[in-house]
């Protein structure tokens, strides 16, 4: 029975990395989901929330709830944005009459790999990607959502994919939202350490479940002229080796 899935596309994915969302749709449809996209959605409010502007973030949370109120299952290709909805909305709306409803909403909002492995029970999505890939565990997915094994489980089932472990795979890449711009030198140095670890394993690709980390890491890799490329997990899973 196809499951109805409502897509939650982070604003920066919508505007800057549309392929990640398109690939998410491809993967979800391939495992039999009926995918919808509510066009009223914008941003979850995390940039304001993380910068201390809770009064600016709160209406985004309320609006998100209004839009997704009737969605039975919400899937997002970003651990960080899911963290905002699941972990921080209840905090942001702690003294609101919407608190219980927003907590329930968070419980049915899933990061893509989490949805595939834990909810849909699918580890093999029929993907093929004959390349060497190393995995970076994005912080919000790992430590806020507790997603340790799910992305790796999916990668292990991808045909032809050679998974190589890098040192300090669970150390922050240095993105951190507005931190990346406000404290560019620290963020850049952290990114460079990550790039060193990527280069040390010699993988063709580095993947993660958070497009924001990858956008930052790609910027660092390109600036250094490194060979490795970033690719979102959804974009690996979308590949079947056959031309569409």
């Amino acid at each position, binding site marked *: 029975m196809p499951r109805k899935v409502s897509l939650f596309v982070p604003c920066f994915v919508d505007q800057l990395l549309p392929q990640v969302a398109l690939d998410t749709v491809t993967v979800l449809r391939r495992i039999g989901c009926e995918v919808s996209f509510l*066009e009223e959605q914008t941003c979850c409010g995390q940039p304001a929330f993380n910068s201390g502007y809770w009064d600016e973030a709160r209406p985004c949370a309320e609006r998100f709830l209004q839009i997704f109120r009737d969605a039975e299952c919400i899937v997002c290709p970003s651990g960080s944005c899911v963290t905002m909805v699941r972990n921080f909305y209840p905090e942001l709306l702690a003294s609101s009459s919407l608190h219980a409803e927003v907590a329930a909403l968070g419980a049915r909002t899933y990061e893509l790999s989490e949805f595939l492995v834990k909810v849909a029970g699918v580890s093999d999505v029929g993907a093929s990607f004959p390349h060497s890939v190393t995995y970076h565990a994005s912080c919000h997915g790992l*430590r806020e959502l507790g997603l340790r094994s799910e992305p790796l489980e999916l990668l292990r089932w991808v045909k032809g994919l050679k998974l190589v472990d890098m040192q300090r795979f669970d150390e922050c890449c*240095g993105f951190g939202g507005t931190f990346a711009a406000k404290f560019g*030198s620290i963020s850049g140095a952290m990114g460079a350490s990550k790039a060193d670890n990527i280069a040390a394993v010699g993988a063709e690709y580095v993947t993660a479940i958070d497009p924001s980390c990858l956008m930052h890491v790609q*910027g660092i890799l390109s600036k250094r002229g490194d060979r490795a490329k970033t690719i979102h997990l959804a974009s690996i899973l979308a590949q079947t080796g056959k031309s569409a």
Partner: protein
Amino acid sequence: MNPPASTRASHAPEPQAVRPAPAGTPAQRFLRDAAEKSADLAHREIIRKGMESYEAAHQKGRARFKDWEAARRRCQHIKREAINHLDKYLLQFETNVLAHGGHVFWAEDSAQACAYISALAQRHKVKTVVKSKSMVTEEIELAAALEKLGIAVWETDLGEYIVQLRHEPPYHIVTPAMHLNRKQIGDLFREKLEPGLSDDPVELMAAARRKLRQAFFSAEMGISGANFIVADAGAIAISTNEGNGRLTTSVPRIHVAVTGIEKVIPRLEDLATLWPVLATSGTGQPITTYGTLIGGPRRAGEADGPEEFHVVLVDNGRSRLLANGEEREVLHCIRCGACLNACPVYRHIGGHTYGTIYPGPIGSVLTPHLRGPEFAHLSFASSLCGACTSVCPVRIDLHHHLLYNRRETVKAASSKGSERLMFRLWRAAMLRPRLYSLGGGLGRWGLRALYGLGLAGTIFDPLRDWNRHRAPVPVPKKSFRAQWKKENRT
């Protein structure tokens, strides 16, 4: 004013108070030093090596516990009980210390603490003070206060002694000299102690020991910190590895223990969990070499110990935190340093860049509360990765406290007006999908045009802060929603 060298004991260390005052606000200094240190690859390599050996020991240490997570929860519970009943346990501690013949002084701030200890030193005509490691004495700048009176102050923890000789503050709350390798320490000791020394750690340590022995036996006053203050026993508990703690607290005539009020724990038996958890989190040891409990001065018939025992309980802003229900648990901290070691920001910028007594995640959470909004920038200087929270032995939700601090900073309107305006505009767009789409479309069109002309990173580039350290993001022509509309609507 520092006394002329001739009036000081010939072997006394130079006063610490001669650190040059750096220019700019703490926030400006932080940005400048962070840029410099994060580009200093030699520094990063020293820290990387130090942290890697710590990580290996820490991992091994945790594995010795039958259930490390349960031990963390137990410690969290003990500290929560202690902090939530701080009034009761501190008074119980005081009553017990007084009954043992000790003295307790309640210092509201640094000035009161320093004044009490200074007066005590003057009353006893103290010329030389030996100190064992204590971050609270750094916090209240005690050494400088005593040096003003012409008293020679010796740091006797080896790491502290090294940074004292360099006129530097501690780099790390547990390992004060972790930013130095043996070559640098050898150079320092050859210059300051004995010219003929090699870089051999054993030889260097022996040279420091020769100096410090003289100090121990000439000092009239010993000053220590306390890792815990045990209410039911009326005793302070100290964990050390070098033996200097015991010499400091038992050889001089007067022992002064300086400690923050949050160090209290209810029961002696709580140490059974806290001591090994502290040692494991601090250095990976099962337990530190010395665990010392001191409850009062030397009693009749005892061979060792000071004639007078004073405990100085320092508030210095802590009760403000106690009154803050949301952030009270920050007082649970046992100063193990695990969050510093886990923090990728700390590892890239180093301890001195923070410009605070307590660096790293706990420092970034605590300092704005203890020292005010001048240090608010530290709460923003984090990627919120949460590595600190995952290692904290008393389970303080460190990175979420950074979020609370940020919110309070914005509320207090000490943040930039332009940023506030930006977020207001941002909100207006995010609440109106058409405005959002229009803004996104124009933004992408503008960036594509700009980058097409090769203007990325220039003054015309709104993302130049981003592009200073990274190659520009390739900007797509169409948003996802535009493509979705086209493909999924007829």
